[in-house]
Every structure is written in structure tokens, then in C-alpha cells.
């Protein structure tokens, strides 16, 4: 027999996603006289647009499950993109950043982009784990610093002339593929590995995790480093897609990523959340952005609605937590 409690946790979030899509379809016919969902090209654009911050969101989900937060995703993306791109310029690049490193195999700029992201994440994790500074402040510091370093790196100049072999990673459906593969891998890791179990345990009760013998500091550093690496990967994919890297890339992506994570059902209190929920959250944000543009509603109204959705999602989470506390 059909029972609501037998449904997976993501079912309700998916229902919201479908509901929003149908709502835009109806509004499309009423106000614009066109189908919203019938346009395949639009759907492709939606998924391409959300893939980049979706990759960041996969890392942020893990950080939030440990009851932390990572505000530096967008800035780390920009810094990683700048550094990776400077090693991905083609042999005929005009005024290259490193004339001695042109036409390198693509694995090198990709690895460098990931390493820059991982280093930023490692710093975030180490500050959080060893100094007692709240992750909100530690990653806020990284947000400002990484963005500034991205500007200083080329004295504000964009990095052009990326090699064709490098820009392939951002072409066609590649960004979407990267997002889904990353999401799938970390979904399985969180669900079936010791890393995943300990991530949930730390977010649920850090003291209990410590008493159980988990090296909480080392684990937190690992989680933030992975999140940083994924921001680095997002930077690589984004500059490959844009065929250019600029220090202003990915501005506000951290907030989109956090929004997607929260909408996807991950608790800001830690201990609960899934990557599959985040993927749906990412899609919801994509549909809202695209739907509003389709209805020709001003960008600022879109932001208002996004803000309201995030606050609503957190309020629901708070109610769920309060309910659990009263039961315990």
C-alpha cells in the first residue's frame, strides 16, 4: 500500500521541483502565450547554467552536513580559474601570463586549478578545526582574500587565448556531465563509506564523534579541502566554457550553492542532508531563474523570490528540528 513515509526523503523536494516547473508552464501560456517546458533549448540552457554552481554545491553540502558553512566557493572558483587558465593558454596566445608554459597538456591546468581550490579549502578547514574561529568567519575571510588574490594575480587583467584542448571541458554537455558525475560519486561516498558516516556523525554530535574515536579535526580539514577542490573544479570548467578567466567570475555563486543545498533538504544544523537533494535543489534554482526570465520578470524580483525560498526552507528545517527535540 502507498505510504508517505515509505517514500525517499527527496520525493517531497522533487514534487516541489515538478510543481514549480508546471507553474511556470501554466504562467507561460497565460502571460506569454508560449510553452515553458516545450522549449528543449531552454531546458539545456538551464542545466548548463546550474552545473557550475552545482559542482560547488556538492562540496558545500558536505561542509553543511558537518554543521559548518563555506562562503568562499565563488571566490575560490575565480582564483582557481585564473591560475588554471594562466597555464592553459595556447601557443599563439597574445601577451601570455607565462610565455614559458604555453600549450601544456590539459591535465596540468586542470590539476593546478584543483590544487588551488584544495589549498584554499585546506586553509578554511585548518582555521576552523584548529583555531575555534567559526567557519562563517573563516570562509568569509577566504572569500575576500581569494577574490583579491585573483585580481592581484594578473593585475586585474583577464586571461585570454585558452588552448582548444582545454576549452573542450567547457563545451557542449561537458559541464553537465562533470556535475552529474561529481554528484553521483559524492552521493555514493556519503552513503556508503566511512568518510560519509563520519561526516554525518560530526554534524550530528561532534562530541559523540570525538568520543567514538573519530579524528574530528582531520576529518573537518578533509571535508573543507574536498569542498575547495570542487570549487576549483567549477573554476576550471567555467573558464573552459567561457574560454576566458576573469577575477569577477562566480560572484554570488557561493550563495546560489548554499541556497541549493538548503532547498535540497540539508539541515543547517548539521547531521542531515543528501547530494541527491542538492541536485534537485540546484535544478529548482535553475528553473526559477529561467522561469522568471521567460516571464520577463526583473532580475531583482528573482532575487527576492530566491531569498524567500531560502528563508522558507530554513524555517521548515527549524520546525523539523524542534519537533525532534521535543520527541527526544
Amino acid at each position, binding site marked *: 500500500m502507498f505510504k508517505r513515509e515509505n517514500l525517499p526523503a527527496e520525493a517531497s523536494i522533487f514534487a516541489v521541483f515538478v510543481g514549480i516547473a508546471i507553474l511556470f508552464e501554466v504562467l507561460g501560456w497565460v502571460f506569454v502565450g508560449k510553452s515553458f517546458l516545450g522549449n528543449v533549448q531552454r531546458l539545456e540552457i538551464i542545466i548548463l547554467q546550474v552545473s557550475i554552481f552545482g559542482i560547488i554545491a556538492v562540496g558545500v553540502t558536505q561542509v553543511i552536513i558537518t554543521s559548518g558553512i563555506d562562503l568562499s566557493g565563488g571566490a575560490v572558483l575565480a582564483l582557481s580559474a585564473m591560475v588554471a587558465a594562466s597555464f592553459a593558454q595556447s601557443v599563439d596566445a597574445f601577451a601570455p601570463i607565462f610565455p614559458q608554459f604555453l600549450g601544456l597538456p590539459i591535465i596540468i591546468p586542470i590539476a593546478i586549478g584543483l590544487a588551488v581550490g584544495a589549498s584554499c579549502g585546506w586553509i578554511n578547514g585548518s582555521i576552523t578545526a584548529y583555531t575555534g574561529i567559526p567557519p562563517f568567519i573563516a570562509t568569509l575571510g577566504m572569500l575576500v582574500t581569494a577574490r583579491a588574490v585573483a585580481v592581484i594575480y594578473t593585475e586585474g587583467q583577464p586571461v585570454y587565448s585558452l588552448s582548444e584542448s582545454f576549452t573542450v571541458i567547457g563545451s557542449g554537455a561537458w559541464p553537465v556531465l562533470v556535475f552529474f558525475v561529481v554528484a553521483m560519486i559524492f552521493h555514493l561516498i556519503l552513503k556508503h563509506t566511512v568518510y560519509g*558516516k563520519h561526516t*554525518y556523525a560530526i554534524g550530528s554530535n561532534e562530541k559523540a*564523534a570525538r568520543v567514538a*574515536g573519530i579524528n574530528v579535526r582531520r576529518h573537518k580539514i578533509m571535508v573543507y579541502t574536498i569542498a575547495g577542490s570542487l570549487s576549483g573544479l567549477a573554476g576550471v570548467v567555467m573558464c573552459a566554457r567561457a574560454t576566458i578567466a576573469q577575477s569577477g567570475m562566480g560572484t554570488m555563486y557561493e550563495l546560489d550553492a548554499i541556497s541549493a543545498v538548503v532547498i535540497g533538504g540539508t539541515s543547517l544544523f548539521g547531521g542531515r542532508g543528501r547530494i541527491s537533494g542538492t541536485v534537485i535543489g540546484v535544478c529548482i534554482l535553475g528553473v526559477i531563474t529561467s522561469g522568471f526570465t521567460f516571464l520577463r520578470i526583473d532580475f531583482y524580483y528573482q532575487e527576492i523570490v530566491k531569498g524567500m525560498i531560502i528563508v522558507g526552507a530554513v524555517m521548515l528545517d527549524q520546525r523539523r528540528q524542534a519537533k525532534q527535540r521535543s520527541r*527526544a
Partner: protein
Amino acid sequence: MNNQDDIILRTENLTKHYGGVHALEEANFTLKKGEHIAIVGDNGAGKSTFVRQITGVEQPTSGDMFFEGKQVEFNSPLEAREAGIESVFQDLALCNDLDVPSNLFLGREELLFKFGPFSILDEKKMMEKAKEVLERTAIKIPNLSNHVGDMSGGQRQCVAISRSASFASKLIIMDEPTAALGVQETTQVENIIRGLKEQGVPLILISHNLRQVFDLVDKIWVFRRGRIVGEVIASETDGNEIISMITGMQGGVHEKDSYI
């Protein structure tokens, strides 16, 4: 005189200072194999501080500890657990967002495939073992896949105790295990403790409940203001003597106001 071979845990002048606060002063303590003892004392007497030192949660300022005749220093709870010392803490130390098997096996998961932190869990084996463990302790939890946070206080406490009871090969320490439980749940926990006695697993029980202490243990150690002030055989003393030792006042409480 104690036969050294019979002693499982011994501390010599164990001391813990938090800055200027002397929480534990020169505690000399012994526990024999198979023995169930209680540590009693007023709030701030140093009971929990003592337990934190012997379970590796904290490291003592000075003093020595011997476990199974060998001098030991536990730098983390994991080291104490690896040595065979299991603890049930006052605040349970459970992860509310994890299910029963995950809580039981936290930090010592059964693995299908080893690959550092990304080792793959053997969830089926953990579930089967969890069922066995709970059956042994006669605890009834309808669905082990439920989050521990969704369970009653009694069920949660039973999970915490089962975790210790099933893994402790050598010593179990329980800090106020029934403080937040109802009558029925308290009875259930006390039965588990009696089962441990039958199995010969030594136990250190911290409790404010003197009725429970007299019911369950062989010996009582009394702490006052960070010091051990007495060690008495449970069957050779009474509530008034224990209260006198806890409070430091001669006469304890009046007969008719007996504590137990």
C-alpha cells in the same frame, strides 16, 4: 592486601587541574577483575573528571594509571577503547541523525573494502550484528534503521549501553546511566548491568541514586572536593555512612530522613 593479578585498573596520585581549579587531587583507586563498583559524591566532587582521565577524554595533569598491570596513557577515547575500556557518558554521546547500527559501530565500522577514509561500509553485517547485540541485552527497538533522535530517552540510553556492553572486553564505565529515565526504563538498564555482572565484566558506575548503588555494586568509592575520601564494601555500610562521607558531616542524615 590486593593480589596484583586480580587488579584490572589502578591509579596512583591521579591529578587534574583546570588552571587554578583543582578538580581531582591525587586519586589512588583500584578495581578488581569482575568487580562492580560505584563512584559517588556531590556535584563537583570530581567523579566525572576522574572518569574523563581514565577514558582518555582528557589527560591528567599528573599521576599514573595502570591497566591490566601495565602503565598506560590514553591520549584519546579511541586509545582507551582499543585497550578495552568502554564508556557510557552522562549526555549519551549518541549521534541523533544516525541509525542504531551506525551508532553502535561508530569509529569501528565493519568494512567491505578497505581504502583509508573512503573504505566501503559493510552495512548488512553491521545491521545483523546490531540485532544480535540488542537481542542479547533484551532491548526491544522496533526499527533499527530509524534515527536514534526519533527514539525515546530509554531506547536511546539502551542503545548507548548496548554499545558499551557489546564491545567492552575488559571494563565498562557508566556515568549517570539512568539520570534521565523513567521507572521502567531504569529497570531495563539495571537489568543490563546485572547481566554484565553475571558475565564477569567489571563496571564503574557513577550515580547519585544510592538505592541503585546499593542494589548493583560490590564496593563504593566516595569522592569529595576532588579527593577520594572513602572506599567501603556495599554490604557492610548504609546510606547514612555514605552521606556522611559525601557531605563531610558526621552523622549523615537523620535516621528517619534516610536517603534510600
